[in-house]
């Protein structure tokens, strides 16, 4: 939900390594990023800072790295891919490599999916040989 993005971002992990010269902080083993209801789980997360702004980019990698968040309407969105890039400054999440998005009963897969966390809109792209597949399940009343 939008309130998530007012919160601080917390990163838990077993180990940490930083390249002070290139200003990259890496978090290794059982990495979990939390920001309100937003949760990213990955094997490694790298945090890149930008030159003279404190906008940061969080790059999560895993087999797969997973992302979940409660939306404003209370529904949950799940993303998973080899790589999840979260740019809070631009409200953008880009997932690539066996990218899969699941929400309620609909599912979108492709090689790359971008999701705008503010407008909650997404776009899926695929390389030549892969297809974007979208499965929309009708909202059936009896299914709990």
């Amino acid at each position, binding site marked *: 939900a939008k309130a998530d*993005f*007012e*919160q*601080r*971002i*917390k*990163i*838990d*992990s*077993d*180990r*940490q*390594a*930083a*390249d*002070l*010269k290139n*200003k990259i*902080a890496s*978090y290794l083993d059982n990495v979990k990023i939390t920001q309100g209801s937003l949760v990213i789980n990955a094997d490694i997360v790298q*945090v890149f*800072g930008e*030159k*003279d*702004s*404190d*906008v*940061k980019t969080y790059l999560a990698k895993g087999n797969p790295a997973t992302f979940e968040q409660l939306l404003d309407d209370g529904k949950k969105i799940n993303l998973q891919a080899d790589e999840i890039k979260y740019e*809070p*400054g631009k409200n953008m999440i880009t997932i690539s490599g066996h990218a899969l998005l699941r929400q309620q009963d609909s599912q979108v897969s492709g090689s790359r999916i971008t999701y705008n966390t503010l407008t909650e809109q997404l776009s899926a792209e695929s390389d030549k040989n892969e297809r974007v597949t979208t499965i929309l399940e009708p909202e059936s009343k009896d299914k709990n």
Partner: protein
Amino acid sequence: MNRLSVWALIFFLLSVLVYGVAEWRSSLVEQTDAIDSELIPDFIAEALKSDIYDVSGKLSHKIDAQRMEHYASLEFTHFEFPNYTLYPKNESSPWKVSANEATLYNNNRVMLENRVRLLATAPESLVKEIHCKYLELDLNTNIISSDQTVVIKGKGFTMHGSGLIIDLNTKQMTLTEHVQTIYEKSSR
């Protein structure tokens, strides 16, 4: 055993006894002297300020301290409220390390204790400050390590963990036990 030899024997035992006691008491006194001399510093400096250059003549580090005591036989130097300024390789701005006390051993390793602060003077450095209770600094390799818990403050984040190792020359840092890092909301 006539009376004479009995008296001789008694006299002999008496003298051995007296000698033993005297010897025992003198050995005690001497021992405490030895410890005292090692505990007295060989020289003391107040308001110390010194610059140390490496073999090639480059400024390696500076140290100033409120008080310094050097113990030659024990081969260490103790500082009160030391401030180190370190000049790592290919680095324009130095790092500063301060603490309530520090002990320098002659292999150029320094143990800093109580309110230890490591500060990066480079304005855009990823890491700004590191706070901990205990830190080891190798002045030869500019490698800093601590197995105690540390708090690392950087641009927009605060990191908690222990098992810190920083190589100021290669600018690589690791925390073998990372607890949590909190990133403040970036001002959009």
